[in-house]
């Protein structure tokens, strides 16, 4: 019969203990995957169409000619940024004595500048726009002329509305 010495018994016990303790520490394995989401700055504005023709054709005797008004169009806006504004400009200046103005209804939390005279340089029409989406906001155009402007053939102007940073 083979005799197992004390040293061998201690060795066996230590081996078993080492396996029992250490085995759970090495159970399982892991791996990693990366998810990357990039959100771009989004500033979108669209209008419902063109206003009707603006014609200055009547006046009260003794007064300046009546202003022509159109409020038939609207605009839609979406932005995911804060502190944005809308500016407006026309592609070329108006004839002498003729003035074109625009007023935009402000979306929630923003401020309309009221009636703004349009020119070749962009002018603020709505300020303080932050993180919103809203549709059907009103646009009003007003065309006025002094008597000195005289009469003239119809003409067109392109109005550009732009969302830009800065309140």
């Amino acid at each position, binding site marked *: 019969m083979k005799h197992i010495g004390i040293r061998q018994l201690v060795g066996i016990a230590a081996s078993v203990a080492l396996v029992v303790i250490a085995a759970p520490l090495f159970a399982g394995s892991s791996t990693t995957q*990366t998810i*990357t989401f990039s959100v771009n700055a989004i*500033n979108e504005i669209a209008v419902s169409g063109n206003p009707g023709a603006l014609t200055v054709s009547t006046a009260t005797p003794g007064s300046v000619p009546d202003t022509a008004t159109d409020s038939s169009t609207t605009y839609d806006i979406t932005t995911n*940024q804060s502190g944005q504004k809308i500016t407006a400009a026309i592609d070329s200046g108006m004839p002498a004595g003729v003035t074109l103005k625009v007023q935009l209804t402000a979306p929630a939390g923003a401020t309309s500048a009221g009636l703004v005279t349009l020119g070749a340089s962009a002018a603020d029409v709505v300020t303080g726009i932050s993180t919103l989406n809203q549709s059907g906001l009103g646009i009003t155009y007003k065309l006025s002329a002094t008597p000195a402007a005289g009469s003239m053939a119809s003409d067109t102007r392109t109005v550009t509305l732009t969302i830009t940073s800065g309140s």
Partner: protein
Amino acid sequence: MKGRYWFTAAIALLVVRASAVDIASSGDWTQTITAADLTGGAGTDLNSQYDSPVGIATINISNVSGTWHVSARRDTGTWPAGLHLWVRRTSDGSGTGSISGGAAFVEISALDTDVFSGTETRDNVALQFRVTGMSKNVTPDTYVSSVIYTVTP
């Protein structure tokens, strides 16, 4: 020497236990949100849900005899609070054993969540990711998060 024999046997036993069940993966997901993702153009909000292509990532289970379980968790990274990340298994993969669970989307949180389980080896188990909660209120930026899969016997 007999003492050395027992010590060597113990080390060998430890090595065998240390090699049990391996998991490997391939494929990451990158998604860019633009104005094209508005539901209806200006005046509307962003689509709230985005799905990765099916099988954009795969999982391999190897060096195993018997059953295993795969769980997943997400590190916080730069992930915004309102976005939720999900994963599901879109194929059984191939191998000598079987696979079950995980065919429906499971939300991945900061805590380990069981995704699917099986037996024996399994190769090329296809995965698909989903993100929900996107809106105009998510600040423009790049958000990165790691998904950590753990396999246990």
